[in-house]
């Protein structure tokens, strides 16, 4: 039996050549490696973040102790308002990214030949090859008072006065988030659309189902886990990337990442740790809700 199989596979020796004991050892580690990874790179850093957040603050650093001062500083100050505001604007960014990005993902899956789909998606991901700080900075000459956009609109006679709400405002931050994170929703939408067989479009066409109903009743339920994953990614980045409000936001545009950065500037490390812990708790809660609603393990189902 064994030699026949070897012959049938053209002499290529399958996995059976690996001794059983080694395979068992590999299997043992294959199941535990993700666990070790999670413990090393998530659980321990998170636990340390929470522990440091209750340490006593000193002039230059912190010392072991237990105080909830950092959390009090967060929840009973303008920081909480800023955090909630940044959640609101991140949500707006998610919605805009979805409206702009998901149709692209559907279009690629539905209308681009299979052989070219990955290349087309790659085109949308290419901007990621450029440093984010360069991409964000490049928005300034476009959006500023005498920038490209205002100059063009003025020259076309569309506006008389420059639009100043585009930069150093929450709007500026949302524009930056959409420009920075749009590829995430395209990519996750593209993956999510793997759960939607191509023949479904044809069936819908045959049955005369309109685009809206097709989207609402067929595509959205099937692609929901992937869309949710992409949305969470954008939302969390909107909360945490301090670069965007720092460069495009004005005096009032502050997100959680910037709150943590400002805490570090004030050498208030326990507060920075508390902000990080709160952000992580927010993320975990979102993921838990998403998992309960959509079963996020389905994201990888089409690939398996």
């Amino acid at each position, binding site marked *: 039996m064994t030699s026949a199989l070897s012959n049938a596979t053209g002499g290529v020796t399958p996995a059976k050549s690996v001794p059983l004991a080694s395979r068992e050892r590999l299997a043992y580690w294959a199941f535990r490696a993700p666990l070790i990874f999670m413990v090393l790179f998530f659980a321990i850093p998170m636990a340390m973040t929470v522990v440091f957040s209750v340490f006593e603050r000193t002039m230059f650093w912190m010392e072991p102790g237990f105080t909830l001062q950092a959390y009090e500083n967060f929840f009973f100050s303008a920081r909480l308002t800023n955090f909630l505001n940044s959640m609101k604007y991140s949500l707006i960014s998610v919605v805009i990214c979805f409206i702009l990005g998901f149709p692209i993902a559907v279009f690629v899956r539905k209308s681009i030949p299979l052989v070219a789909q990955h290349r087309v998606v790659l085109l949308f991901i290419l901007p990621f090859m450029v440093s984010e700080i360069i991409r964000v900075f490049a928005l300034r000459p476009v959006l500023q008072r005498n920038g490209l956009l205002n100059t063009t609109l003025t020259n076309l006679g569309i506006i008389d006065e420059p639009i100043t709400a585009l930069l150093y405002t929450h709007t500026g931050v949302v524009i930056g988030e959409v420009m920075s994170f749009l590829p995430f929703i395209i990519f996750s939408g593209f993956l999510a659309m793997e759960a939607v067989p191509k023949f479904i479009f044809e069936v819908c066409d045959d049955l005369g189902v309109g685009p809206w109903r097709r989207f609402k009743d067929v595509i959205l339920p099937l692609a929901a886990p992937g869309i949710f994953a992409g949305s969470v990614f954008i939302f969390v980045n909107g909360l945490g990337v301090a670069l965007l409000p720092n460069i495009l936001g004005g005096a009032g545009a*502050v997100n959680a990442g910037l709150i943590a950065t400002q805490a570090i500037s004030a050498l208030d490390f326990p507060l920075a740790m508390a902000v990080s812990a709160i952000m992580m708790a927010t993320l975990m809660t979102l993921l838990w809700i998403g998992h309960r609603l959509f079963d996020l393990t389905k994201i990888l189902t089409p690939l398996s």
Partner: protein
Amino acid sequence: MNQAEFNRRQFIALMGAATAASGFGTMAHAQEALKLWAPGIAKVGAQDWSDMEAQSGVGINAIAKSARADESIQKMVVGDGNALYDAMTDNGGGMEDALASQGAIAELDPSRIPNWGNMLPSYREGGASADTIRYDGKVFAVPYISNADSLAFNYAEIGEELNSWEALFDSQFRGRAAMQNDFGPTLTNTAIYLKQSGKGSIDNPSDMTEDEVRQTAEFLIALKKKGHFRTFWDGVQNGADLLSSEEVLVSSCWEVIQIFAARKNGQDIRYGTMKEGHQSWNNVLMLTRGGQERGMEDAFYSLANVYLSPWFGARTLAGLGFTPQMEGVTEYVDANPEEFDADTRALMLDRLERKQARRMVAGNSWQNVFPTNMRAYQDWWSQVQAA
């Protein structure tokens, strides 16, 4: 200064220069490059550090540094700064105290800097600026630039000279005003205004009590909530962009920002003299403890010697608008007319006169990056940021 003293000083300087120009420089070049943590404003001449290297005779591996005081503290006191940098710059009159008290920087031997005698008299023991380079009576820093910060304004748009901080906080510039994203200069300048205008009960804007810090911060928070500030700037480029793009018409900023902003599009952006006073500051060069332990002292002193030379002073005044920290700059410029054309010489003279005018204002206060109530400054500044 008598003739004998002058001759001795000149002799020492000449000997130092000769040493740097001959074998010493060659030896230093052969050494490992000095790892210098400093902002771009610490260099003059070529775009890179090659002119500074040529003058000092040492290789310089410059690592970009921001002007934020907290960054220095983090790196040098709780971080790995001493492993990374041999020398660094920061504000004098506070930072050298903080770093020296934590053992992060090394005491200096002025006798190893031939140009030490060129330094402005105010830095000598007992002088008005003596404390800004000393900790516990010992020298820990070498000054290389200073200034009195003021208000930059777009004259073309505003149509009048501004000579009061009142303009920065005036409602006519709501949404078109900016200040620095740093508690030191922003709280100090605001406190100077509040004190001199009688709107705040502040004794010493350089070293405020907790209540005075609260008053100052609450004043800014109230304005911020009204949308008065377009943004708080970070760094020279950011500050200059805000002015040149007309995002803001008035900005409390460094003179170099006004110079760059005016130069960018040829706009008439000016730097005023504020009747209430200005925040004065200097920037100093320090030898890190790590640099000393790695045997980089010779390279450090060679660079420090350049920073106290009229060659550097003339160029930092002409290019960046900073005040030279040594005597003999005018003589150097006169002696080297091929290096500075007539327009540049006139510009330098004008800058020196305006600096003198700012320096003479009674309400000036020193920028204290390490005030007594540092925690209050930090806490209230974070509330300004979060408001």
